């Protein structure tokens, strides 16, 4: 207000300085919440972005020192809470927020960092199953990367001691938490590989908070595990804690003790497996031998007594013969039946039948005709008898029978009808009904009148 009254004229710089003083004095320690946008990360290492909500935006900067301390990566769209102060960028006349700390809202910064690194490495294929190396069946030298004073090494050695497993163990001592621990772990992995004595490496740490376990979520560790030619078993924290190291490892054991069990059991298992295989080998060979022996026995027996074999063959031949005879008979029977059937069929179609019936017909006809003839003859016979009777009545014999005689000349036997035919002295023959009499004519006397 004083400025208006006194009519004092300011330069732009003076005004800007005044504004900055006002702003910096009044907005010194602020917590601001908003969404990140327009993020720029130039090579200087500073971070530039805009923080906004639905109604307003404000430009923000985070200088390199503060930005390097961030565990997670800032990204557009992320909702964050930042701590900072308001200041003015003189050259442009912009006011801006200078952030000295920020964290993602909702998730903790470490969780977000974990998720981001996990996604990034997964996309790179660092956790792919195909990359995982097989854990050797019988490791004789085991490398352990862990703290020499921690619970993990104690647990591991305990398990191995309890199982009396003969193993060579090389411990590579490292710090497992705090600044620089991740780099130490990574170096240990590289060193173990260049030494090349261990056949498997156990990377172990006892349980702790997410901050305690953080070294195992660092990219350098993940990369060192992925680069290891020796298979790596991770055993970090408790079963529920999954770290980036676990994901990158060839095998994850839920705890350090479990990792030791894996290695020890593998050896004990192998020992048992080998013993079992040896037993099976022996048994199979014994069986084979037993089979061979019994085959030999059988062969020997049949060698001793070929008759048995021959008898068996003979029996077989008999059997075959019987069966073939039976088969043949059956076939013949069938043939016969077919022939009979055909004969029957033929008979019913045979001309003989027709001949027979024709003969019968003829016979009938002849019977009929002879009957007819007989009838006719009978009729004829009857008329003959009548006629014969009549004839008989006309016969000279009948006249003779009635007592008349017939005279015939001798020797020529002419029928004498008239007396004039005769002369005295002639001889005549008289025929009676019952014989003849020869007579001489003595005299003739003609009848006077008749």
């Amino acid at each position: 207000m004083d400025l208006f009254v006194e009519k004092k004229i300011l330069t732009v710089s003076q005004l800007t300085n005044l504004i900055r003083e006002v702003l910096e004095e009044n907005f010194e320690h602020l917590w601001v919440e908003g969404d990140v946008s327009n993020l720029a990360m130039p090579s200087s290492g500073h971070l530039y972005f805009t923080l906004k909500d639905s109604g307003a935006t404000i430009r923000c900067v985070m200088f390199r020192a503060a930005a390097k301390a961030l565990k997670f990566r800032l990204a557009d769209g992320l909702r964050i809470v930042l701590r900072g102060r308001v200041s003015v960028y003189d050259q442009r006349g912009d006011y801006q927020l200078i952030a000295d700390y920020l964290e993602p809202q909702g998730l903790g910064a470490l969780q977000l960092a974990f998720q981001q690194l996990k996604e990034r490495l997964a996309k790179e294929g660092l956790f792919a199953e195909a990359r995982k190396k097989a854990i050797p069946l019988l490791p004789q030298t085991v490398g352990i990367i862990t703290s020499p004073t921690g619970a993990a090494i104690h647990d591991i050695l305990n398990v191995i001691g309890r199982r009396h497993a003969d193993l060579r163990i090389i411990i590579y001592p490292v710090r497992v938490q705090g600044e620089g621990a991740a780099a130490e772990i990574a170096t240990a992995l590289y060193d173990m590989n260049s030494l090349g004595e261990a056949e498997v490496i156990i990377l172990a740490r006892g349980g702790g908070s997410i901050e305690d376990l953080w070294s195992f979520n660092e990219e350098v560790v993940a990369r060192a595990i992925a680069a290891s030619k020796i298979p790596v078993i991770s055993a970090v924290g408790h079963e529920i804690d999954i770290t980036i190291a676990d994901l990158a490892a060839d095998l994850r054991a839920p705890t350090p003790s479990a990792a030791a069990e894996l290695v020890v059991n593998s050896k004990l298992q192998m020992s048992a497996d080998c013993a079992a295989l040896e037993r099976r080998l022996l048994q199979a060979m014994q069986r084979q031998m037993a089979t061979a022996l019994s085959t030999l026995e059988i062969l020997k027996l049949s060698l001793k007594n070929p008759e048995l074999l021959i008898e068996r063959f003979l029996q077989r031949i008999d059997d075959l013969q019987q069966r073939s005879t039976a088969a043949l008979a059956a076939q013949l029977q069938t043939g016969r039946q077919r022939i009979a059937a055909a004969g029957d069929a033929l008979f019913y179609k045979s001309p003989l039948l027709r001949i027979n019936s024709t003969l019968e017909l003829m016979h009938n006809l002849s019977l009929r005709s002879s009957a007819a003839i007989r009838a006719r003859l009978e009729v004829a016979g009857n008329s003959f008898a009548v006629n014969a009777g009549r004839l008989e009545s006309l016969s000279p014999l009948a006249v003779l029978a009635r007592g008349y005689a017939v005279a015939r000349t001798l020797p020529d036997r002419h029928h004498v009808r008239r007396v004039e035919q005769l002369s005295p002295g002639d001889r005549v023959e008289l025929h009676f009904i019952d014989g003849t009499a020869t007579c001489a004519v003595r005299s003739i006397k003609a009848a006077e009148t008749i």
Partner: protein
Amino acid sequence: MAAEKFEISLKKLEEAVKKLESGELSLEESLKVFEEGVTHSAICSRKLNEAQKKVELLLKQKDGNFTREEFLSTNDK
């Protein structure tokens, strides 16, 4: 690596057992396979007994070389 040889021998032993158990071999072949199996079985047991219990602590020197010393954990004491 010794472990690799162990694994090869184990595999050959397994193969020999499987072949022999199949019962498809002639007696002569069986004897050959059996002999191989016994050889590999011997290699396996040798490997199993080769390792000796020993716990060493690896210490890196300033010059980058390593020295070793026996490691005594608290439960050994």
